[in-house]
Structure formats: C-alpha cells, structure tokens
C-alpha cells in the first residue's frame, strides 16, 4: 500500500524525466561544470579566504603563519638539496664531460585555489584556457612539491586531480638511496610508495621525489616524506606510507607548469 502511495505514477514520471535530463547533461558536462564553477567562483574564493583567515586566527595566528613559512622554506631547501645531490652524482659519473644545468626551469602560471572537490581528491583553480592551461599539465607548489595534474580545463577555471587521488600513479625515487618505486594515491590526501625492490634500503624520514621515468612530472619534484616502511616477507617489493609535502589546508595558490625550459 505504502509503496504504491510513495511511488505514485506522477512522482515516478517526474523523477525519471529529471534523471534522464541530468544524464543527458553528460553530453555537455564540460560546459555545464564550467558554467557552474564560473558562477560559484566568487563565493568560493571568498569562503576559501574566510576559512583560511579563521583557521589561522584560531590555530595560533602569527606563530602558525611563521610555521607555514618555515615549512615552505624547508621544502624548498630539501628540493635544492635533492637537486644538488643529483648533480653531484652526475658530475662524478660524467667527469670530464660538459657541465650540465643545475636545475630545470619551468614556464609556469600562478593560480589561486578556490575550492576542493566534494567527493574526490581534486581542487578547482582560478585559471583555465584563458591562461594557457591545458589538460594533463602538472601542478606544483612554490616549494617545488608535486600537487597533481590538470584533468579538466574550462575557459576561466580548471580542475586538478591531486597526486593523492585513488586514480593517481606516478614514478618516484628515494632521494637518499636512489631506489625507485611508484607512488599511488589512497584518497583523503594519503600516499603510498609501492614497488620498491627489497634490496633498496630506506627508512622513515627519507624524501621521495618524482623520477625521470614518468612523463607526467619533471624530475626531482618533492612528493612526500617516508612516514612508515611497510615490509612484508612474502612480497617481493617494499611499501611505505608517505606524508605529502603538499598541504591543501595551508595553500592558497599553486603553479601550473605550461612548458619545460630545459
């Protein structure tokens, strides 16, 4: 009886028509999302700013800001150290040959973060096709930490899938031992370093960087710090839980790499 009342013909028809209409929007999903994000972006930007200010105020004010600056400086120094270690090794190997460039320079665009996706590990940035941002471009922080890559580019905005998204995989190396592996996103801003051969030694605190094996990111970008090594006798590979260098809560802007100037 109740089922009959609840699912009256009128309701079923209206519900089905609306659902069909929503499904048909998938044909123009990019335009629909672009429009929705453009309309909401002023409000989103204000809310992001308000949230940032309030959390900073309650989280220790100037002390916290100072801490964030120091963390960012630390990331930058770690990136420089890793690049220098690499250069030192290359110098040893290529003695007598021409001197190679110390670090890669990128052609980048700075963009503001205006929101985080509701159900996935992705962010919305203010800047899209109008700033030359295309699908697939890597996104990094000022401290040279990998953030993610652009998955959708709208006229004035773009959606960036974070490296912590479940679908995300990228080739990585351990800065100290040069062991290689694959960093997989776990969702909820968590990362795992996987497929590291058993013979490669590494421990908590080691820094994980992007490697030159992948084509998604330039080499030597910071990914995360090893938090816990997960060893298993049966598994031919080692795993580790990583603490990402990119912190969404304390970031207001990121950089999209438009091209590499090697």
């Amino acid at each position, binding site marked *: 009886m109740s089922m009959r009342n*609840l699912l009256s013909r009128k309701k079923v028809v209206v519900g089905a028509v609306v659902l069909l209409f929503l499904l048909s929007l998938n044909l123009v999903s990019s335009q629909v999302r672009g429009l929705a994000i453009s309309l909401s972006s002023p409000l989103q930007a204000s809310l992001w700013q308000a949230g940032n200010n309030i959390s900073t105020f309650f989280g220790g004010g100037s002390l916290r800001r100072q801490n964030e600056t120091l963390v960012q400086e630390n990331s930058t120094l770690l990136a420089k150290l890793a690049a220098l270690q690499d250069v030192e090794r290359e110098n040893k190997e290529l003695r007598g040959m021409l001197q190679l460039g110390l670090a890669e320079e990128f052609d980048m665009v700075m963009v503001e973060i205006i929101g985080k996706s*509701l*159900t996935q590990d992705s962010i919305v940035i203010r800047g899209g096709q109008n700033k030359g941002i295309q699908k697939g471009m890597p996104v990094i922080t000022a401290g040279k930490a990998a953030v993610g890559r652009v998955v959708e580019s709208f006229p004035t905005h773009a959606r960036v899938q974070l490296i912590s998204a479940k679908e995300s995989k990228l080739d990585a190396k351990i800065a100290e031992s040069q062991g290689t592996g694959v960093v997989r996103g776990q969702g909820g801003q968590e990362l795992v370093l996987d497929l590291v051969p058993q013979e490669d030694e590494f421990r908590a605190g080691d820094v994980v960087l992007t490697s030159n094996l992948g084509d998604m990111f330039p080499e030597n970008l910071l990914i995360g710090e090893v938090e816990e090594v997960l060893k298993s006798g049966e598994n031919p590979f080692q795993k580790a839980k990583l603490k990402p260098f990119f912190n969404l*809560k304390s970031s207001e802007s990121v950089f999209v790499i438009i091209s590499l100037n090697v």
Partner: protein
Amino acid sequence: MKLLFGIFLLLYAFALLQMSFFVHFFPAGLIPNLVILTVLCLSIFERFSSSVSMAGSLFGGFLLDIFSGGIIGFWPLVLLLISTFIKIALEDYVRLPIPKKF
C-alpha cells in the same frame, strides 16, 4: 514552493561551504558531507506523501556530481534510492515517534 527554494539554497550553500570553507577545519578527506546529511534528514522528517526529499535528492545529487567530476546523474540516483528506502522503512517497518515537520 518557498520551502523547496529554501532547501535548494541551503543545499547549494552547504556544497560551497564543504568545498571552500570546511577544508580548513577538518582533517583531509574527513569533511562531513552536509548535502547527503541534509537529504537524509529531509527523508526522515518529512511526511510520507511529501516530495521535498525527492526534489532535494535530485538537486543535492546534481550539486555533488557537478562539483566532483563524476558522471552527472549518479548521485541523484543514489540519493533518490536511499531516500525512498528510508521513507518506506519508516512507514512500514519502523514505528518511531518522529515528528513530521513538512
């Protein structure tokens, strides 16, 4: 009609707050999904014959899809099914003195 418009506004505000405001206060990935919670509350507290939760499910689901990058239509369908299930369960199988507000 006023009620529906108010609920749509509330769902939109919750979606924006969730995306841009609460990110700074909750540990990553653990932000409560206010849109889903609102639809669940509507399903529980509305009269059996009311269609407000159905409209809320469709609009709230649309917002979740539009701001997340998934297939548009997935969340409306899921919320609609959950809402229908709750209403049938509360009407036929659970006898609780829940005040029906609208």
